């Protein structure tokens, strides 16, 4: 927090008069009070969700705010309820996230390299096309893509009803990742590449050994965002696997959870918490990568 502290360091080196100091103290107190109030408001939904997740069904349907007794077994019941294949959904989500993230990183790094460190005719146009692809809503292309997957039966394999139509496109470059990686590659000093070239490295080897290593933070950010995006994704998995519960991901399973269990708010909230948990856990494990990554997208974007 050194940057924040530096930002509030006193402007004047001399000790200011008592009146000014009192005013500054009041401003600081007011500022912190508003911050605390806002923080409470932001925490309240989490609190209510958690408390309800720990209630019995009758309590959740009453006006009680505090669970008594605490129904910890809800978190166990969620896994054993008929129709709710939480473990199955987790496995599907994991499959989607890992395969998609791997594809995004492997296919976007070379494209971003060509768009940033190599000079060729048409490069700026190609980059603009990436930007346009990045900003167009997925709904624009979704109908023909669905038709394409529905009519495509290699060896009699049916893509509709599986997650493959959602996973495969990630292996052919992702516009957002290309954009983010390109912005980062541009900041790597040319001297590193020149040194490698003098040592007799080809461009491909420079990409693999020099650039990839220097760009580790950006690659980590891309992998992180891709994981988050796929973990949260709802629209595309719903289109392709919405009708086949065996291939549901967590987000679809959760949205259908209440229809599987009528009005059991307590179990629904327990499942909601379980879906939030991996992301929040990941945040605390990789807090710096998160904040740096978000900043990278915003300030450099």
């Amino acid at each position, binding site marked *: *927090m050194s940057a*924040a502290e*530096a*930002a*509030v360091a006193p*402007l004047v080196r001399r000790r200011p008069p008592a009146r000014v100091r009192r005013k500054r103290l009041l401003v*600081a107190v007011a*500022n912190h009070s508003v*911050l605390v109030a806002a*923080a409470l408001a*932001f925490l309240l*939904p*989490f609190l*209510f*969700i958690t408390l309800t997740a720990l209630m019995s069904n009758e309590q959740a349907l009453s*006006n009680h705010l505090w669970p008594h007794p605490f129904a910890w077994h809800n978190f166990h019941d969620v896994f054993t309820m008929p129709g709710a294949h939480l473990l199955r959904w987790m496995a599907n989500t994991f499959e989607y996230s890992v395969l998609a993230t791997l594809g995004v990183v492997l*296919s976007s790094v*070379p494209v971003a390299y*060509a768009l940033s460190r*190599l000079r*060729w005719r048409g490069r700026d146009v*190609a980059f603009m*096309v990436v*930007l*346009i692809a990045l*900003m*167009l*809503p*997925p*709904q*624009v*292309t*979704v*109908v*023909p893509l*669905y*038709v394409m997957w*529905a009519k495509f039966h290699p060896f009699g394999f049916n893509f509709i009803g599986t997650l493959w139509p959602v996973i495969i*496109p990630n*292996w052919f470059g992702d516009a957002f990742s290309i954009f983010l990686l390109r912005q980062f590659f541009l900041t790597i000093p040319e001297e590193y590449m020149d040194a490698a070239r003098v040592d007799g490295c080809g461009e491909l080897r420079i990409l693999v050994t020099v650039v990839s290593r220097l760009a580790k933070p950006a690659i980590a950010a891309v992998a992180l965002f891709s994981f988050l995006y796929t973990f*949260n994704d709802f629209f595309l998995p719903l289109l392709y696997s*919405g009708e086949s519960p065996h291939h549901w991901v967590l987000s*679809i399973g959760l*949205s*259908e959870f209440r*229809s599987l269990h*009528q*009005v059991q708010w307590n179990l*629904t*909230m327990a499942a909601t918490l379980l*879906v*939030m948990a991996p*992301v*929040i856990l990941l*945040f605390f494990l990789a*807090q710096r990568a*998160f904040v740096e990554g*978000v900043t990278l997208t*915003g300030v*450099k974007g």
Partner: protein
Amino acid sequence: MERRRARSRAAWRRRRLVLILMSPWLVGFSVFFGYPLVMSAYLSLNHYDLLSAPRWVGLANYRYLFSVDPQTWTAVRNTLWMIGVLVPLQVLSAFGLALMLARARAGVGIFRTIFYLPALAPPVAATLGFVFILNPATGPVNTILSHLGISGPLWFQDPSWSKPSLVMLGIWGVGNTMIIFLAAVLDVPRTLYESAQLDGAGPLQRMRYVTLPSISPVLLFAAVLGVIQGLQYFTQAYVAAGVAAGQASQAADVTAASLGYPLDSTLMYPVLLYQHGFTDFQMGYASAMAMFLFVVSFAVTLTIVLNSRRWVHEAGR
């Protein structure tokens, strides 16, 4: 002669390298972007239900979309409402939080984490949580309000409160934008503030003449991204309508009947597109809707791309 051949060989090798590196995107762009765009334009001129072959109908889909279907303009109005209300509120609240965080003396890390966490919550989970918290009968918010002697609104059950409820959900998830703004605010050179103060500028004037101009590119960029995301707004509207409708009917099933619940008040343009394309399988009509969305978002995007160099330049130092 010999040298020229060597040079052209080197140039060719270089082109081949670019081609190899670009190949994932070349394939990805043509198959998952270029082809569907062209196909979308073609399908929009056809009647197509996936089962029988497309039947040419000319501009009939567009005519029906713009002048007959009453849901089109409901969906357009709802989407514009969300963009018009949510985007300014998100930018304002993110900016306010970032400013307060930049001035805070203690607990910055904790506050930052608290404001950022909701942005991480998966949209489906966050929406489900909000529909429960705001449920009119037993929800904690209306329970607390009734203790205070206020009878709370019906939130997601009331056509005039459903969109404001979605806006609250959107503001809860403002953390990403807040982090970006905070970085931008902290990046404003201290010397600018010092010289402004020497010139006798008060806190409000420093905000007006130092902070705002310095970070305006970032604010603008966030607003534009918000518009783009607003055009795609789907998940929260879809889930909230489905769950709230199920709760009201006790039948509890997310079906086509629940889309837009209550009374089409959450029927966003992408939700209507989903309904026509993927519950009614009117692929031609849905393509016409997609083309309209394409034209609108392309216009927005082009404006941004053409101006982005200026904004990026001003944002960087």
